[in-house]
């Protein structure tokens, strides 16, 4: 297997080459098959590696290809590091990547850019694998930029209009800010660890450093800025909802399963550095929880099916960072895995719905789809239960692990986490009920065209459904069973575990937490059921949602009143304000202002270029005078 490591990224690259260069000549089927098979190949190899690594006593090995850069003190080999962490990510990327390739086969079938689409997808997979496999920060950075570029291309895949530029530029500027942080972080590492940027060297040195070192904090914070950009954390998150404009498989692969988790991977990879800096840990945790709550609350009022999922992705990413921040590295990675399962499932399900609704994305136009799309309906239900953390579904265990650590770390964090969970459950079931239950609200011909998606789309759905059903069992809390994933990942996080050791929770606390979570989940689902199914409420049309009170007087039900009082009014208000004020004004405002500022400056500076030689000569003379004056007097 070791010899085949090189093939893992190479195969998708090959696929990109073929589909990209000969895309026009190949038939659609051929192009699709090539793209899928390459990814499948890398998946097979990764699987092999996975088992191999488990049985190595060192649990890690590096594969050197060539000396990449050797400039004086700067010695960077081009080599891959295979260890449990990278293996897990390899499996997620290639596995889910493969499913999504298959899905796209059906989804994109009548798009004229079919081959181009697959070539981009393959290219993306290549860079993502590079990002994960690299044995030093530079390779990671290369992959990092690469995936950014591909997502840029894929978001714009369907865009022919100018409105695209704005969204794209926003995505672009935010990711750039992140990259700036990342790059500076790398350079700082380079300086601090005397010219090393390889994981092995850096982490070995870091092991013996004392906690709370200033430069380490700086490094970790800079890296975290990078992570914020990629993984859409406050304040660099607004690009993700915009990115939903791309084809749905793209949203599933890039903006749910893989790319956005690159930030998590980076932090998890540098766990030892973060373990050295409590400050950074706090920052990560707080950013995470704030983002989680915030995005969840915005999700409450969205009516575009993909927007809802986008905000939920942001909030789930927030949970992962919360996990990292409170030292639950395993939990975070675990959540990455389960989230990849169910969020990919949900996106693909949404895709299938959109496909059936012939392009309609507004849930208010849907309803009662469960008869028309049985498979989609079932799988979507499973996905929803999983994300809601319904007992024994995959989301349940991973979220619980994170929350347990949060509880152990600080009760407030736990409470907020629960609050977020409540909102998540509510908006997900709102989405679910409104879409699949009730009566159909679309146009006649939409209803006429309603149809279940082709096999190539439903099969991945089912596979993912199974995964999100049972995926949780690899990481049972020790009160129930064994946490296989933890054992598997142990070697990666061993050092940082030592650094921030804390006693495990007592068992009854664990139980209490588990049960609380389950009860809350069930109750909220019941609320949602009451509200949207029994009462048959639909989300308000545009403009009404400011005065929910008007709608509530009509019904006498105590439960509804309670619900209104407890959730809807404050949350609607909050959600509304967050969306309108924070997101639209503050974040986008800042981003757009930066753009504007540059443009204005440029407009001013260009005026210097008067085209008059006289002025040019004058400027030269004046500057020479200035130079001589400054340097001599």
């Amino acid at each position, binding site marked *: 297997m070791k010899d085949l490591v090189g093939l893992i990224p190479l195969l998708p690259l090959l696929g990109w080459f073929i589909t990209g260069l000969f895309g026009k000549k190949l038939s659609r089927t051929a192009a699709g098959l090539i793209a899928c098979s390459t990814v499948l190949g890398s998946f097979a190899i990764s699987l092999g590696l996975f088992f191999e690594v488990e049985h190595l006593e060192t649990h890690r090995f590096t594969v050197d290809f060539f000396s990449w850069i050797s400039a004086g003190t700067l010695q960077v080999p081009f080599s891959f590091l295979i260890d449990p962490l990278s293996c897990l990510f390899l499996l997620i990327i290639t596995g889910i990547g493969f499913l999504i390739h298959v899905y796209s086969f059906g989804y994109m079938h009548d798009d004229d850019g079919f081959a181009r689409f697959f070539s981009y997808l393959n290219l993306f997979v290549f860079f993502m694998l590079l990002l994960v496999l690299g044995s030093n920060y530079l390779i990671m950075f290369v992959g990092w930029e690469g995936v950014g570029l591909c997502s840029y291309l894929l978001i714009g895949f369907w865009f022919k209009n100018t409105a695209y530029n704005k969204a794209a530029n926003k995505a672009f500027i935010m990711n750039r800010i992140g990259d700036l942080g990342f790059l500076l972080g790398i350079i700082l590492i380079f300086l601090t660890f005397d010219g090393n940027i390889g994981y092995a060297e850096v982490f070995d040195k870091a092991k013996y450093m004392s906690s709370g070192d200033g430069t380490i904090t700086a490094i970790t914070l800079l890296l975290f800025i990078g992570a914020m950009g990629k993984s859409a954390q406050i304040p660099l998150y607004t690009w993700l909802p915009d990115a939903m404009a791309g084809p749905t498989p793209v949203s599933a692969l890039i903006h749910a399963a893989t790319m956005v988790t690159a930030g998590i991977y980076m932090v998890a990879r540098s766990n030892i550095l973060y373990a050295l800096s409590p400050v950074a840990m706090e920052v990560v945790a707080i950013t995470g929880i704030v983002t989680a709550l915030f995005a969840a609350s915005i999700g409450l009022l969205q009516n575009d099916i993909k927007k809802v999922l986008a905000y939920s992705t942001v909030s789930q990413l927030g949970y992962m960072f919360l996990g990292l921040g409170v030292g639950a590295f395993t939990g975070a990675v675990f959540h990455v895995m389960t989230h990849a399962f169910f969020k990919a499932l949900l996106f693909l399900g949404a895709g299938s719905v959109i496909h059936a609704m012939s392009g309609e994305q507004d849930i208010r136009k849907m309803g009662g789809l469960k008869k028309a799309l049985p498979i989609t309906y079932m799988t979507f239900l499973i996905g929803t239960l999983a994300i809601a953390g319904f007992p024994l579904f995959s989301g349940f265990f991973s979220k619980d692990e994170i929350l347990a650590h949060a509880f152990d770390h600080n009760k407030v964090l736990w409470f907020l986490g629960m609050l977020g969970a409540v909102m998540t459950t509510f908006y997900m079931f709102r989405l679910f009920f409104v879409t699949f239950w009730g009566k159909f609200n679309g146009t006649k011909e939409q209803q006429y065209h309603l149809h279940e998606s082709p096999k190539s789309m439903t099969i991945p759905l089912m596979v993912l459904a199974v995964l999100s059903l049972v995926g949780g069992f690899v990481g049972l809390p020790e009160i129930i069973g064994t946490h296989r994933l933890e054992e598997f990942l142990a070697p990666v996080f061993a050092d940082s575990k030592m650094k921030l050791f804390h006693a495990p929770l007592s068992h009854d606390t664990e139980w209490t937490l588990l049960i609380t979570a389950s009860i809350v989940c069930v109750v909220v689902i019941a609320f949602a059921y009451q509200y949207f199914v029994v009462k048959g409420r639909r989300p308000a049309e545009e403009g009404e949602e400011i005065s929910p009170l008007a709608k509530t007087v009509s019904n006498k039900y105590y439960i509804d009143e309670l619900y209104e009082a407890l959730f809807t009014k404050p949350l609607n208000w909050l959600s509304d304000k967050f969306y309108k004020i924070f997101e639209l004004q503050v974040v986008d405002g800042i981003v757009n202002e930066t753009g504007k500022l540059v443009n204005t400056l440029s407009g001013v500076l*260009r*005026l210097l*270029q*008067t*085209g*008059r*030689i*006289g002025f040019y*000569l*004058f400027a030269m*003379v004046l500057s020479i005078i200035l130079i001589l004056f400054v340097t001599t007097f």
Partner: protein
Amino acid sequence: MSSIQVIPVHMYVLLSAVLFSIGVMGVIFRRNAIIVFMCVELMLNAVNLLLVAFSSYLSDGAGQVFVFFIMAVAAAEVAVGLAILSMVYRNTKSVDIDTLSKLKE
């Protein structure tokens, strides 16, 4: 006897500095391209003077040989420059450096 023995070299430095500055001033003062160009020549001559002064101060021939090359280059520049000038004049009927500002911003 050579003047460099009776006149301190810094007088020459000053002289050529003054001439040079006059040249520069002319360059930014006039608008007639030819005059501007002549002022550039003036600057070059200030440099030549400086070089010669230094060379005979150091009793080193190199300086004067360098002046040769400067002259050669000056000749070449004049040839090309005036050719360009006449070409421009032919097309725009003007050698005013400031009316020639179509390319800008």
